[in-house]
């Protein structure tokens, strides 16, 4: 079993027609907890980001609720994303074919997948979303802890500089810039998942069609095909 392009657990479910298991249940649950957290964080954060969106705080019961809910959900997102990170980071490391993919970004947008190199489980766009999310979530959790009014005393013994007002001002600016960034990455992620037809089911039922895998992630499909056990003709079906 080689796992250069695939994650443990990825496998071909059936051959006629071909369906490929892309995400196991626990990964999908992990993904949707992260997604729900991010949506709650975006809505509650936008309420504090711009006065014209303050009304969104009403969805949670008002600004006083947003004040504690937003950072609490931030902790949930951080832990949840960290678990996703552990499962996905290896296959998101950059590879040579990513550079070719990026150079052919015009063909990507035009949907000319036949002109693109064969890819493993993720293309460079997906890798960009992964690493952008990773970096922005790190920035957001760090600056978020600095501006979380109730938790500021936690900094005093370890990093008193982080509790100072000049540091908090910078944290507020970085937090809001990173928030804008992560909302843009989120929009890109959702848009790409919908535009690339046949992708959403990877995160709902967990499987994709063979044609989808062949079109977008052929190296991944090839590896999974190779990893299949050779049919053992000496065994009877009853075994």
């Amino acid at each position: 079993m080689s796992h250069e392009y695939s994650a443990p657990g990825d496998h071909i479910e059936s051959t006629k027609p071909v369906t490929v298991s892309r995400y196991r249940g626990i990964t999908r649950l992990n993904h949707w907890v992260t997604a729900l957290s991010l949506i709650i964080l975006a809505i509650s954060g936008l309420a504090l980001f711009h006065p014209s969106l303050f009304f969104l705080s009403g969805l949670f019961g008002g600004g006083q609720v947003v004040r504690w809910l937003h950072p609490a959900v931030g902790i949930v997102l951080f832990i949840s994303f960290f678990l996703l990170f552990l499962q996905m980071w290896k296959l998101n490391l950059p590879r040579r074919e990513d550079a070719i993919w990026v150079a052919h970004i015009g063909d990507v947008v035009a949907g000319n997948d036949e002109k693109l190199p064969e890819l493993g489980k993720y293309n460079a766009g997906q890798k960009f979303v992964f690493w952008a999310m990773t970096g922005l979530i790190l920035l957001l959790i760090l600056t978020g802890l600095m501006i979380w009014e109730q938790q500021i005393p936690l900094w005093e013994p370890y990093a008193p500089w982080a509790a100072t007002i000049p540091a908090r001002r910078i944290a507020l600016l970085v937090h809001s810039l990173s928030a804008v960034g992560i909302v843009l990455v989120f929009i890109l992620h959702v848009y790409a998942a919908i535009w690339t037809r046949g992708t959403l089911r990877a995160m709902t039922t967990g499987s994709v069609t063979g044609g989808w895998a062949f079109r977008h992630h052929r190296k991944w499909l090839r590896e999974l095909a190779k990893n299949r056990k050779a049919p053992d003709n000496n065994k009877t079906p009853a075994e």
Partner: protein
Amino acid sequence: MTERAPQPTTAAANPPVQPLTSNLLPSDVVRISATANVPAPERQLEKVAKLIDVSKCIGCKACQSACIEWNDTHPDMEENVGVYENPHDLTPEMFTLMRFDEYVNPEGDLEWLIRKDGCMHCEDPGCLKACPAPGAIVQYSNGIVDFVSSNCIGCGYCVSGCPFDVPRIHKTAQVSKKCTLCSDRVAVGQGPACAKACPTQAITFGTKESQIALANERIEDLKSRGYDNAGLYDPQGVGGTHVMYVLHHADKPGLYSGLPEDPRISPVVEGWKGATKTIGLAAMGLAAAGAVLHGLFSKGNQVSAEEEHEAEELVVKTAATPPENREGL
């Protein structure tokens, strides 16, 4: 109908005996946090100011006591750690604090510099700029900057916005607290409680004009006594303040427990509440709208039936090859 209270011109006057209605009306508000387009007020109240003459202060803390009494706050009992400050800092229950500093002047003499710290009521308030909650901070046309607890969400942004490190978040009420300049007293024609209580009239209150005139008299007097650098602290970086100091060393405000030399709203806060807010919202809005529109009109990236077939062939062909010969597939 009871008569409307006059605008106060001094803290020394005794309260009237007849009932009076408030003269600080919702329509006198000129700035509201997180609110654009505040309607122009029908009238302009006379600008008021509190003047704190540091050279006349004896450090008795009567102002603190009066503040606690009037605002019905309950500062914690603390430990004596060998300094005169009590409590140790401004707190959500202590809106004003005498800060004591010992300064050895170039002649080698000790000067005991006592400054009454608290909200400066900036003409351009950083707290109000930073606040995300509509109506939690308001500024009246007489210059008073007031926190409205019922609209406050306790986020602490005002703490970061303030150039003077004044607001404090109440740990149980979860709202921000600071000096109100006794807006509730000013509303009925009375000066602030601290000014009323001050036994040496180191704290006075009146129209900003009258307080500047008084300050100039005091500065002239101080200069005649050898304080060549005596001056008024009314920092223009925040548009002037409605709490001003007469300092004997106006050239070195930092001597007075770190009073800022040239306070202004931090450029970081300006950037956060200015360009970031506007451009950020536009970028997110455009991206979301663009994605939805493009998503509606694009037919998407479809997988063809042929590709489904090719996938099947690939899988079947691989399966037919013994594992040791699968390298090139």
